[in-house]
């Protein structure tokens, strides 16, 4: 087939429509949040003293970390799924969440006697944390990988990893409402491992599933 003939065929198909990628991303984010909320409420749900805890700095700081991670990953994944879109500022934004966590860890180390560092880090929920963040995040991750297929990421493995970070940030936001371990030492360790697992899954999905 000559290229001119191909152009005739493409032109004849000009009227076919697809939802603009950027709008589709917002719908996907909404659907992912709903799925994460349903899984969260059907399994572990918020902790009973949620309203009391909401007055403490440590409890609230968890949401700052996870929401900042989700928001920055959402900005980056939208850029990564669009060919030729500038990504450097969104890429730089990804450092915000780790920086905030690092700052909180330093403050915690200053505020808490050295003898307690170990128990604060180990906490009481680490297995639940490492189980439920991936469990809540797996549905959203599937949606985001599907969205990457709908888009056109020129770096599919990186985009897949960012899909995992986005799913992780979203899942951790819900999980944080359940967890009693509010110390930044706990968050920096176990949340990170759980979210990294989702990022790894996402990278694999990007490698093998996101082809276009």
């Amino acid at each position, binding site marked *: 087939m000559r290229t001119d003939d191909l152009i005739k065929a*493409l*032109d*004849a198909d*000009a*009227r076919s429509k697809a939802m603009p990628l950027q709008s589709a991303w917002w719908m996907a984010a909404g659907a992912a949040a709903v799925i994460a909320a349903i899984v969260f409420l059907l399994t572990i749900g918020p902790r009973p003293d949620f309203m009391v805890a909401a007055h403490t700095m440590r409890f609230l700081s968890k949401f700052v970390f996870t929401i900042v991670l989700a928001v920055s990953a959402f900005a980056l994944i939208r850029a990564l799924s669009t*060919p030729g879109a500038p990504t450097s500022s969104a890429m730089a934004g990804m450092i915000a969440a780790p920086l905030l966590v690092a700052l909180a860890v330093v403050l915690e180390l200053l505020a808490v006697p050295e003898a307690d560092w170990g128990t604060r880090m180990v906490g009481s929920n680490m297995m639940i944390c490492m189980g439920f963040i991936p469990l809540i995040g797996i549905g959203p991750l599937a949606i985001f990988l599907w969205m990457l297929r709908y888009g*056109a990421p020129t770096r599919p493995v990186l985009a897949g990893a960012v899909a995992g970070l986005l799913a992780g940030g979203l899942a951790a936001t819900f999980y944080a409402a359940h967890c009693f371990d509010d110390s930044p030492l706990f968050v920096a360790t176990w949340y990170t491992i759980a979210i990294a697992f989702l990022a790894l899954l996402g990278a694999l999905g990007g490698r093998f599933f996101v082809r276009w």
Partner: protein
Amino acid sequence: MTGKDEAELSRLMRAAIAGDEKAYADFLRRIAALVRGFVRRKIVQGGVDPEDVVQETLLAIHVKRHTWRQDAPVLPWVYAIARFKLIDAFRRRGRRIEIDVDDIAETFAEPEQESVSERDINRALDGLSPAQRSVVSAVSVEGQSIGETAAKFGISETAVRVSLHRGLAAIAKRFGQGRFGRE
């Protein structure tokens, strides 16, 4: 490429998305020429046929045109897709060279096979369902309109459009998965 090119091509693409078929044909022809130049400059040694990459890029541009933001310049988007498809072509070729010993024998046996019909897109076309293949061929190679194709096969124009759309999407998908060669 100049700023004037960019403005004109963005305008054509916006008109095309709004449903102007003439603008779309214009856009695709001009993009084909730009991408051809780009790909020929990048392919310095043989093995990858530039025109195959041009065709893959055009198909990707078509099936992924919803990823272009209408407020963004169109050329960086086009070249990012072309570069991606070019790298893909090199990658596939590397893999084929490593594993396909049989191909060499075949080439020696039938040298006349090297012709226009050897285009990657023709092999991808062979993988379509018979209905999709005949519609895509009628509209492209035979240059018939949607209406003429509908009359020829005795089906509705909507059915022609659906077959064409699905056929093109299937070809693009096979390109994406590198599954159109002799495996």
